[in-house]
């Protein structure tokens, strides 16, 4: 088991966004988390990656307790996060975006004397090709299309090479064609590492998921394969009842 979440609870001004949640992710597992709006899915990812501090409970990543750490410390342990809206560095080129994400020399002095070597450039080339941006290395990220920005962000995560990958709606706002290519990309990306994906698009979830967790009002409503989930009467009620 690479990630183990126990009794995780957080409330904002009396509103309990996540309520006594338990979740376990195995190594190499691809877990999809689905649920209606406001179910606490994004808040869950925020707590894992150190952005939000839980009120109660624990998050164990390998041997580390993540609830005590702040964002960059969690990242350095090997947790990578992709945000819902594409978050790239718009004033930097694709190449520079990938270079910055390379997980070496993250201090000020180290970065000051950081030199690009052949290994780094090979890795950048390789990643850029995988995210379909091999011909766009010199383009500023701000000039890319929405879908390309999403890919670039996935590429930045590939450079980081995290053991646990958190993806928040990776195909939101994409065209059907882009969606397909992203599914293809993610299958490659997630091989050999554990991943949690939050997604609304059921067809997409069906394409990629091993196990699906359904969240509702901050709690786990159901967990199982896609077929089991779709047959679960409680899930049907939550989704169709609204």
């Amino acid at each position, binding site marked *: 088991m690479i990630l183990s979440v126990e009794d995780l609870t957080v409330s904002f001004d009396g509103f309990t966004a996540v309520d006594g949640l338990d979740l376990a992710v195995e190594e190499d597992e691809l877990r999809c988390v689905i649920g209606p709006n406001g179910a606490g899915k994004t808040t869950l990812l925020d707590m894992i990656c150190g952005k939000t501090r839980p009120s109660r409970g624990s998050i164990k990543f390998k041997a580390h307790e993540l609830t005590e750490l702040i964002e960059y410390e969690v990242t350095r342990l090997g947790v990578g996060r992709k945000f819902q809206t594409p978050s790239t560095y718009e004033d930097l080129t694709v190449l520079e975006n990938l270079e910055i*994400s390379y997980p070496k020399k993250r201090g*000020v002095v180290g970065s000051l004397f950081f030199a690009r070597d052949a290994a780094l450039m090979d890795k950048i080339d390789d990643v850029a090709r995988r995210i379909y941006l091999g011909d766009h290395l010199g383009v500023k990220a701000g000039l890319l299309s929405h879908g390309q920005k999403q890919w670039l962000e996935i590429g930045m995560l590939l450079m980081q090479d995290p053991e646990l990958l958190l993806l928040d709606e990776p195909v939101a706002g994409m065209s059907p064609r882009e969606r397909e290519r992203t599914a293809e990309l993610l299958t490659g990306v997630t091989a050999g590492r554990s991943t949690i994906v939050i997604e609304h698009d059921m067809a997409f979830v069906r394409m990629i998921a091993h196990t699906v967790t359904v969240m509702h009002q901050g709690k786990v409503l159901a967990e199982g394969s896609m077929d089991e989930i779709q047959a679960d009467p409680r899930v049907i009620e939550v989704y169709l009842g609204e």
Partner: protein
Amino acid sequence: MLLLAVPFVVDPFREQLVAKYLCFTFPAVGLVLVWGHGGILSLGQGLYFGMGSYFMAMFLKLEAAAQSNTGSALSQFYGSSLPDFMVWNSVEVLPWWWRPFHSLAFTIVAILVIPPLFAFLLAYANFRKRVGGVYFSIITLALAAMASIVIIGQQGYTGGVNGITDFKTFLGVDILSDRVKRVLYFITVVTMVASVLSARLVLASRTGKILVAIRDREDRVRFSGYNPATFKAFAFAAAALLAAVGGALFALQEGLASPSLVGIVPSIEMVIYAAVGGRLSLVGAVYGTLVVFSAKTFFSENFPEIWLYLLGAVFILVVVFLPTGLAGLAERLASVLRPRRVRVSAPVRAMPEEIDTPVEVGSAPPA
């Protein structure tokens, strides 16, 4: 590089003015680093400029005090030579924190270490707690204001509102002679060029890119595994170092360290130099400073009654019409001129779309 020719074409008075302006290019270059690229607006660079100038002036004043006749008469009386303003304010013993400034080595180390160290600790403490943006700007502003008030208030130790002045030698060399002033002028130019080049190296390094990334999307940088607080504090310290070097050169050339260069007004003027030059361009900041100072001198010599209004109008025009400053204007001119040359050189072969492209490029303002 035009600056190297200045001493040979203008009279010593003008040369002296340019030398003075050059000292203020240092804080402006620092602001390009910390504000233009790091996104941290410091309204208190006068504090670091002041530190540099006061440290240098303290050294020079102690040398002057040891030499002057009145000083030695009094020194026999008190057992040590005191700067004149201390005597006038009945300070009888040299304060302990003045004593190390007898040593030139200590003075130089102090100029190069204390301002950036202070700046780094201040900035890191704030940025770690995620105090940033306008709030941090106000803190820098408040510190500069406090420093000038303390300096004015503690007349016996700091020279008060008059500042520290009236010193003539540096290690026995007469700094008022034209020849020495020329040497100092060249030292200033060389130091300035070296500063711009080092700043350029910083910006070209991975640290420089991370600074830009922090400016645009600080939250995301944390998820790339960096601690933004250290990077921002580093940029702030680098800007403080540049300002202090400028201040030290100023004290050496002008023979003055004054609270009027520490407070709010000079600090904000330094931001204006960087803004006029273009806050993203290191070289632009140098020219911005020189242009603002030249305008200041020109207007005040020719329109003594209304020069401040004219200067204000220039600032407003720059802010409204040239958001990227002179450097942005130069870039825009270059991009207008470049395609035209292409069109002139190849008029016959030009296909319709080839005509379209240069016009488009030329008329589009740089992003």
